[in-house]
């Protein structure tokens, strides 16, 4: 096996729950362990509020960890000095959901793509300009866009600019946080194809965060399903979609409307996603789970190895094994 590029080890992030007056905190990310290998795409799916974006920000070191550690190429970010941290940060980049708000409206496209270069020791102006042209070409934008402002571009073109900026420093890992959710399907297809091509050409690893399971399936090598701050199932893409084991994953897959009118929506899950105030004890899914028992209401299960390339966190799995 490859040595992992990025390794999350029991990573946790708590936010103080303000306004409750009880000094409570909210575990946005809870004991998450995950490896990403070079050139690989790991999909991270889950519903709003489950902690997927927070996890993405932790990977980028935009937030401080509450517990656990993150290793990038074997180095722990927390143990490095300022200069080393900076060098490491340029190896991990991000593309956000809404390019309208992630591009500076007062910068021209050239300035936007040039900025990371300027800040990372590209002193020679001519070389910078050359590089910007090259980058725009890589994402399929011509030279005529150099002098334009973001508002003059369509949503898909803006996302291309954001991608050009993200690859400008030759990163090894890009966190893609819902990169196509704001786009129409025909444009989404263009961007997904572009990402695939760049990944092949530049040997990039992606952490692909999305709530759109069809898109995740199309792009990812393996998929992690998050629910309420935890990874509840992790498997190779085909394995996960063909043989989901966690009750939540099953429900999630059944809830996707099928384009075939003769495959009706199956029985879906009742109830809502728990919130901070109504955080359930035990397994966080037990309040909506059809096979929950007393154990699930008391003890939260751990992620456990089922077979090569498949991990699940469900009490029913360990029950099944013991019997």
């Amino acid at each position, binding site marked *: 096996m490859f040595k992992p590029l990025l390794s999350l080890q029991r990573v946790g992030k708590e936010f103080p729950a303000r306004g409750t007056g009880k000094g409570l905190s909210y575990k946005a990310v809870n004991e998450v362990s995950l490896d990403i290998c070079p050139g690989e795409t790991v999909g991270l799916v889950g*519903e*709003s509020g489950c902690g997927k974006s927070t996890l993405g920000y932790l990977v980028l070191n935009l937030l401080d960890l509450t517990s656990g550690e993150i290793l990038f190429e074997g180095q722990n970010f927390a143990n490095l000095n300022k200069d080393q941290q900076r060098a490491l940060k340029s190896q991990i980049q991000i593309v956000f959901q809404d390019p309208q708000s992630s591009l500076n409206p007062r910068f021209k496209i050239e300035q936007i793509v040039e900025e990371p270069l300027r800040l990372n020791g590209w002193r020679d102006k001519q070389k910078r300009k050359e590089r910007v042209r090259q980058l725009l070409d890589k994402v399929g934008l011509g030279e005529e866009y150099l002098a334009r402002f973001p508002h003059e571009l*369509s949503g*898909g073109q803006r996302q291309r600019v954001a991608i050009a900026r993200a690859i400008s420093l030759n990163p090894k890992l890009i966190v893609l946080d819902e990169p196509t959710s704001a786009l*129409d*399907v*025909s*444009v*989404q*297809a*263009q961007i*997904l*194809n572009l990402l*695939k091509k760049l990944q092949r050409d530049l040997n990039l690893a992606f952490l692909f965060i999305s*709530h759109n*399971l*069809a*898109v995740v*399936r*199309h792009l990812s090598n393996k998929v992690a399903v998050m629910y309420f701050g935890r990874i509840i199932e992790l498997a190779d893409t085909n394995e996960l*979609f063909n043989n989901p084991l966690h009750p939540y994953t099953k*429900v*999630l897959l*059944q*809830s*996707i*409307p*099928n*384009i*075939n*009118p*003769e495959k*009706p*929506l199956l029985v*879906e*899950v*009742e109830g*809502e*996603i728990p*919130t901070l105030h109504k955080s359930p004890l035990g397994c966080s899914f037990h309040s909506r789970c059809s096979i929950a028992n007393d154990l699930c209401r008391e003890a939260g299960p751990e992620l456990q190895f089922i077979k090569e390339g498949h991990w699940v966190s469900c009490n029913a799995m360990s029950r099944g094994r013991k019997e």
Partner: protein
Amino acid sequence: MEPLLKISDLHVGFLSYAGVARVLNGIDIELFPGEFLGLVGESGSGKSLTANAVLGLLPARSAVISKGSIMFEGKELIGRSEKEFQGLRGKKISMVFQEPMNALNPSYKIGKQMVEILKLHKGLSNKEAKAEAVRWLTQVHIQNPEKVVKEYPYELSGGMRQRVLLAMALSCGSQLLLADEPTTALDVTIQAQILRLMKETADQLGTSVLLITHDLAVVAQTCQRVAVMYCGNIVESGPVTKVLREPRHPYTKALLKALPNPDSETELQSIPGSVPNLLSPPAGCRFHPRCDLVKKTCRELRPQLTTVSENHYVACWREEDHV
């Protein structure tokens, strides 16, 4: 059977400093009692605008209806006064919006907002209206309706808010429900719940639904018929099974191919080019600059919807070649 809603040859333009943007370019829609009709298309194709025109919600200063008619229950809606529209909105024609937080008044309790319309349209007393509000909340499967009427919108989850909106839309006995991307802001498991609820309640009450969405799979799961819009025109309409399985218009075909398909690993096919500027739309068929089957007639004349099989209509000059 008489259609409940019949839009014929509707042209809507918007005045702007640069000229008139022709955003609806002669659209025809028929909706029969008790029917679910899906209206799909990408952003800016004119889907929401069509619904707003039916409700008389086009901005009076800038929007011009230059031609066409909108018949509801056999009566013309265009040219009615604001007062007449007020009698229709919420009573005979209701709308459910994409973002329920924006559609509800944040500073009134749920109960008050529901009671207000029941008193106005049904002439109920305060007490009767309160009981009716609770009954409707039960109808849309809200647990604890007595508690929810005393809560503010911010205290509810997205799914709950959408249920409240649906209850409000149906509570005065509307025959026509315009649902504008009702589940786009929701998570998949909640989306499945709301879609099922909409279908159940509308079937039970015999309400007709015009479901506006960009998601073909949502249409496949809920509607009997679908109309595909591109750039202010309806390019194809017909039974869902026909249109999704045997699409005839190149745009519908392209749209379906752009969707990530779980059964194939192949590269997604995107539609070349981008949506044209409506201030100077292309002559002839508005899709011709992006179409790979374009011929001479397409550049000159606008194709009309023609029958290709029972209830299946396509606006494309290529259909001539099949005959």
